[in-house]
């Protein structure tokens, strides 16, 4: 659920930091199914995780350099597009990151319940 917030530089910076890790997680999760840049951005946006093009495309390249994604140029609708999907190593890292995320979430809930 989105919450209304006042513009505050400190909040904006912290929110950016918080989102950065989750966006990587979301990109890896979304690319269990093959996508190209624009459709991936639309998919993330439809699920409430809007991300700038100038952030997403370099992120895809970084993840590919790290061996977590695989890309290939292929023709679709009479145009060449670069399709990305998660690699085997990427799938393992995604599983580890999801476990880490659940553990952090559980810890946070515990702290907030006190």
């Amino acid at each position, binding site marked *: 659920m989105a919450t209304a917030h006042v513009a505050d530089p400190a909040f904006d910076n912290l929110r950016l930091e918080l989102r950065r890790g989750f966006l990587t997680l979301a990109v890896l999760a979304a690319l269990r199914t093959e996508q*190209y*840049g*624009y459709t991936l951005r639309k998919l993330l946006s439809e699920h409430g995780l809007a991300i700038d*093009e*100038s*952030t997403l*495309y370099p992120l895809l*390249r970084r993840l590919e350099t790290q061996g977590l994604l695989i890309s290939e140029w292929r023709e679709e609708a009479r*145009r060449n597009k670069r399709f990305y999907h998660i690699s085997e190593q990427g799938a393992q890292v995604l599983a580890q990151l999801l476990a880490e995320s659940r553990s952090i979430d559980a810890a946070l809930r515990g702290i907030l319940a006190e």
Partner: protein
Amino acid sequence: MELLERYLQAVRFFLPKHQQDDIVRELTENLVSEMEDREQACGRPLTEDEQVDILRRHGHPMLVAGRYQTRQQLIGPAFFPIYVFALKMGLGASLLVTAVLAIVGSMLTGDPVRHFLDGLFAYPGRALMVFAWTTLSFAGLDYAQSNLKLGPKWDPRTLPKLVRREHWTSRGHSLFEFLITVAFIAWLLLIPGAPHLLLGPAASFLELAPVWRLAYVPILLLLASAAALSLTGVLRPYWTPARSLARIGLRAGTLVIVAIVHRAGEWVLARPAAVAPDGVSLDRLVDVINKGCEVGLAVTALIGLIEIGREVHRLRSRQREALALSSAPGGRSA
């Protein structure tokens, strides 16, 4: 689509050469897909304003290209505070050197005011050089650190020993001492070629006694050691027994030099066949200056003795404190 092509051309300009084609090709596809999507939704071609809106949201070409660079900053946050400190020190030192050179330069020439101002105007150029070299050095250090992955290899056992709060010394004081000593060395180095820097207008009829030639190099060495000791205080601003001993050694060295110089009995001589200004007796003038030198040497020796006494007292009292702390239950290091 002309706007899109202009946009991609601008992005290409800022991209690394070996990635230009690949990145621009991918960006083209993504942006064209987005524009086509919007056109389908509107049921008509996009207006120029709508294309501008898409490209504006995509980001300025320079920023978009910048995100593809592996290296996003010249000096990372780990080195930045040390970089700022080094820059401040470098700019301060260069200001002092400029001031000293301007003063010395103005004393060596016939038009002191103009030469002094010319000397001062050299500061922006020097400051720029200090800024450039410091920035380049730290950028190189940061690059090496991030590429060689030196970070995790550091050993906490190489950290300086625990220092008690009261043993910290003023970094500013040490820096001031260092800069003054360096300026003094520079002045001393100029004296053989320009004796009027010491004797003033009297250099035309007076000269230094031979004993100063004997003492010249030892004085320079002593000052260089003092500068090195002050610099140590800037880099590691706390008291240590070794530094106290070094200070005692330097003061003792000063006393030895003073004793040797004092034994000479005369420190300034009249130049052969020199003529003093009207109404001045040259012998009388030499006598007065030598008396002044004798007093100066005595005062220097006295200050040296007082400093040695102070340093010995500090050394002994701190050694007693350390002994008391280490013998107390749960004693800590000094």
